């Protein structure tokens, strides 16, 4: 973002035109009027083709990138802007890293309302400020009408893993405990409820949130007992548990009755014939912890606003076939499988 002789004059009642991505004065105006004020910070203000930042201390770097194509762009409890900030902060932080810096790349479809673009930029800025993780560099492109769907956002994040911490998906061992930070399915159901053709009245809001504060409290409480953390986004809890089982070469047994699901989410899933275990979340995490650290971890999580409903949901076991099994609340057993096919496209 390096506008040269731009003036912040832009009529927000208009629409994005191809010239807004052409590298000329219109593009500079777009950046100056919409993105710069929304995301302002000292690194972004350097105005070069890259941002140069200090490394705040010792440790290893963690980096992650993610694309956001959610439909609709605005949904109950969030929008594509805040989602793009939260999602990447979480991906970086789940390594135990302190997230430090973000980059943002926005691809805009010709004809997109400028007012909506400003709303999205403001939402990104608010999420970034609230999390204390600045967007230090960015880019915008405009593509012809029909070549994108409104706005696509790609973000990347950098963080610093403190010395001595080593979390990884292959570290679950038989006997370890599986802890979930809160109720599942909120994000997916919030998106579903606002989809065209499927609108239904619900009070469910997306759980989209930055989890690095909760994660810092978890690292402080459980330290080396913590084996790994994952966020159950697309594919839900079911996919994430299967990933862990495969990566660590173990089995997992969970208790259905221990998994928090909001009654409204359970009701919507019932109505739509979908399993809450496969519905996406954007503000929840799963931790695998040595039994010695499980109680301290649970207590620390429950003391944090984003982990109040944290629950011990299962145990890692030995299983050559790496099955995730569940004791149903009804008293039987069953497999928790990956979602087959596609439940819902473009959930994040």
């Amino acid at each position, binding site marked *: 973002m390096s506008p040269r002789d731009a003036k912040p004059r832009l009529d927000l009642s208009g629409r994005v035109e191809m010239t807004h991505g052409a590298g000329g004065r219109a593009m500079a105006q777009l950046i100056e009027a919409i993105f710069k004020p929304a995301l302002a910070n000292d690194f972004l203000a350097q105005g070069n083709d890259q941002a140069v930042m200090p490394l705040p201390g010792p440790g290893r770097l963690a980096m992650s990138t993610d694309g956001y194509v959610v439909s609709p762009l605005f949904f109950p409890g969030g929008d594509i802007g805040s989602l793009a900030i939260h999602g990447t902060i979480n991906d970086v932080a789940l390594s135990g890293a302190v997230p430090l810096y973000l980059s943002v790349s926005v691809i805009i479809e010709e004809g997109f309302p400028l007012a909506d673009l400003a709303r999205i930029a403001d939402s990104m800025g608010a999420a970034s400020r609230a999390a204390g993780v600045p967007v230090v560099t960015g880019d915008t492109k405009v593509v012809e009408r029909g070549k994108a769907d409104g706005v696509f956002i790609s973000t990347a994040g950098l963080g610093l893993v403190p010395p001595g911490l080593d979390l990884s998906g292959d570290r679950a061992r038989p006997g370890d405990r599986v802890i979930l930070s809160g109720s599942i399915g909120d994000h997916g159901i919030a998106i579903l409820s606002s989809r065209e053709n499927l609108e239904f009245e619900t009070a469910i809001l997306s759980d989209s949130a930055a989890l690095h504060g909760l994660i810092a409290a978890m690292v402080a409480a459980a330290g080396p007992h913590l084996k790994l953390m994952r966020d159950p986004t697309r594919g839900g809890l079911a996919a994430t548990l299967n990933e862990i089982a495969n990566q660590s070469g173990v089995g997992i047994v969970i208790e259905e009755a221990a998994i928090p699901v909001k009654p409204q989410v359970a009701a919507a899933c019932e109505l739509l014939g979908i399993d809450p275990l496969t519905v996406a979340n954007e503000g929840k995490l799963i931790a695998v912890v040595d039994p010695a650290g499980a109680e301290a971890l649970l207590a620390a999580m429950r003391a944090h606003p984003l982990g109040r409903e944290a629950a011990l949901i299962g145990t890692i076991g030995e299983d050559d076939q790496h099955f995730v*099994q569940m004791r149903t609340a009804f008293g039987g057993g069953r497999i928790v499988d990956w979602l087959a096919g596609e439940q819902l496209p473009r959930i994040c």
Partner: protein
Amino acid sequence: MKHVEEYRDGALAQGLAAAIRAEADPARSYRLMEFCGGHTHAIARYGLEDLLPPPVRLIHGPGCPVCVLPVGRIDAAIRLAARPGITLCTYGDLMRLPGSNRDSLLKAKAAGADIRMVYSTLDAVAIAAREPEREVVFFAIGFETTTPPTAVAIREAEQNGLTNFSIFCNHVLTPAAIRAIVTGAEAARDGVAIDGFIGPAHVSTVIGSEAYRFCADEFAKPVAIAGFEPLDVLQAVLMLVRQINQGRHEIETQYIRAVTPTGNRKAQALVATMFEPRPSFEWRGLGALPDSGLRLRPAFARFDAETRFEVETVPAPDHPGCACGTILRGAKRPEQCKLFGTICTPDSPVGACMVSSEGACAAQWSYGRFRRPAAERVSA
């Protein structure tokens, strides 16, 4: 949800399971077919088989509309969707259903056909109203529960004067399929014998419990009509165990909160004004059955895609290794099919029973495959 959770109570389940264990005679066998895919799904999802004693065996029946649709009809739908000007509206499950050469509506859509997933028949009517330049065809499938909504869609299209809405009708009738299974079993075609039926839930709310009278009167098979919740199924199992122990063969209704002897007369009347039985309709696994499928009456021919677009159904064979047919008759268990879990999985289904979550193979694969050795032991 409170109302639903009451039918999933673990403590009540343990009580019912204990009663079944106490009353089931270890020297007898209780081979009970749950006709409906809805029951199959509930049984697998709640791990119900873990609660039943060895003499009680549940056999998964053909009551999954996606599963019994023959390959020739899927091919016909794919060809129809590929025609210029046509928009095919379908329920999601049908998208992945394999036609000949593992073709599917999903692949046809990727190749450019205008195929849209809808959640209700009325969504298809709304598309027809919104896009008058398109010929909108609704891919109508299902048992007696889904026929009334199709009839409502046609009535809606008629009242709104839509001339670009029609249906590709594949509605089928439950009693005809049950009769085919009992007569097949009686003839010992596959060596499978069934001692009783867990009768359909939603279908029975429409057609009524008396529709199964022939099972008891002609074939001496007891029926317990059950709701789709896991406690409903357990209670129906107990009712059937008691009937078999006492040598009774009656039509009993566990699902009394919704099923009456004569069913929903209003829905039946609406369907009867628009639909008539086909002389014969092909079912996967059961073959061509007389009076088992419905078509639109001549007075409604303008809503019949088969007439309007001269849709031709060319009979096509199932994949040679696929055991869906025998599985749908209850003669084989999913894990006895050599394709099960090898080249046929829910991600890449070869047979229809692996597509729908109500299909026996998909239910076994998705929920029960950890139980495989035990299942093989009891299936002998």
